[in-house]
């Protein structure tokens, strides 16, 4: 059986509705919210601040610590709060996807902490988290070479689609989910995970789709950042 029409009537290369907002947590140095469809992520950035215990410090450059957490009520069946095998992995890949654009050489021995909370989940949470974290880091004034955006592509049945929702991820005839993160100017891939089956041609088609999606997201991110400043500057 082939997958001819998407469950929520989107086109195969159409993302869900995106909303982005910057400066949502007054106590943090930088913060942002990113919403794609029913998936909502918030990110807060603290720092650069001093890092303890001392053996973690790097005297050549600052380090980045990401912390991804899903809130217990974010999915239909309550998940146990606290770190898990899954959230530890996502925290790690998130920090690895953000590090290539960050310039932390000016903050030796210091740490930049990024806390990502998933308030509501409907697939693509790590991508939403990366998008929110990228905006929050820019808002915190950390030197960045570029913005990072992320979106998932995948194979549902026999079709390559962008931005899968939960229904599509659980498609009975098999679905492959490929989260991709990219930088804005040079389209460098900073995250690519793949779980499932896909041919080389299909992957290339998916990546091309993700590139277009990421560029759209970056425009939305930049707009949100500009608006946050304008609100503060109307005198």
């Amino acid at each position, binding site marked *: 059986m082939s997958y001819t029409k998407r469950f929520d009537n989107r086109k195969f290369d159409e993302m869900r509705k995106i909303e982005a907002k910057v400066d949502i947590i007054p106590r943090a140095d930088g913060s942002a919210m990113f919403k794609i469809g029913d998936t909502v992520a918030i990110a807060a950035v603290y720092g650069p601040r001093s890092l303890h215990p001392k053996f973690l410090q790097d005297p050549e450059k600052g380090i980045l610590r990401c912390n991804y957490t899903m809130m217990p009520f974010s999915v239909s069946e309550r998940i146990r709060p606290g770190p898990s095998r899954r959230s530890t992995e996502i925290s790690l890949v998130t920090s690895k996807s953000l590090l290539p654009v960050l*310039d932390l050489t000016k*903050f*030796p021995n210091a740490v930049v902490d990024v806390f990502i909370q998933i308030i509501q989940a409907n697939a693509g949470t790590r991508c939403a988290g990366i998008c929110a974290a990228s905006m929050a880091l820019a808002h915190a*004034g950390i030197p960045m070479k570029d913005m990072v955006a992320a979106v998932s592509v995948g194979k549902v049945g026999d079709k390559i689609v962008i931005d899968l929702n939960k229904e599509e991820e659980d498609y009975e005839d098999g679905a492959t989910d490929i989260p991709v993160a990219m930088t804005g100017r040079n389209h460098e891939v900073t995250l690519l995970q793949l779980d499932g089956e896909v041919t080389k041609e299909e992957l290339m088609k998916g990546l091309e789709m993700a590139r277009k999606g990421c560029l759209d997201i970056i425009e939305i*991110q930049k707009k949100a950042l*500009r608006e946050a*400043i304008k609100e503060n500057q*109307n005198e």
Partner: protein
Amino acid sequence: MGILIKEKSIVVPGDIIAEGMDYLPSLGCFREGKHVVSERLGLLNVDNRFIKVIPLTGSYVPKVGDTVIGEVKDMSFGAWFIDIGCAYDGTLMVRDATEFVEKDADLAQVYNFGDFVVAKIVKITRHSSIHITTKGPGLRKIQGGKVISVTPSKVPRVIGKQGSMVSMIKDGTNCTIVVGQNGKIWINGKNPDDELLATEAILKVENESHIDGLTDKIKAFLEKKK
């Protein structure tokens, strides 16, 4: 070729500001091939051939010459370590202190833990050691009054154009106010009510910094409360 984004507009990390080799990147931007690219969220400033991005958000970034207010956090043989609200503590050497310190004296007798000082940043080394001094006009240990914090990026708004905002609050409340560039503000008044009013006014400036005609609004607020 030339500048691609209008001056005084807001730029975001990754924005291409200028093309070609006519312009030089300075603060908050860098060169990538033919382009000058922003690396900060901030205001674009073009001065002759120099491109600068002035950061508008984020935590305090120490600069040489800034007056800051900090708390004594630690001390060792010849120095105090002052928390100035950034990733690195400011080092205040004994020879840079206002007070004369005898050899082998107990440093806690001069500046004790929890004391606040008004200090000036004299030197920042390459690996971000910050040297500060309390020698100079207006620099000292804080006695009396209270210290409040505002977001460092709102400090220019609290000070106002040529200090208009802060001097208005000073006159309106009869308080001495010292604003540190790191967002710490020392308020010292004759009675606690004055200090409370000054605190309220400053927090009002911080919360409503985006509103038009804020100076008039604060003036009206101070007169009403008097």
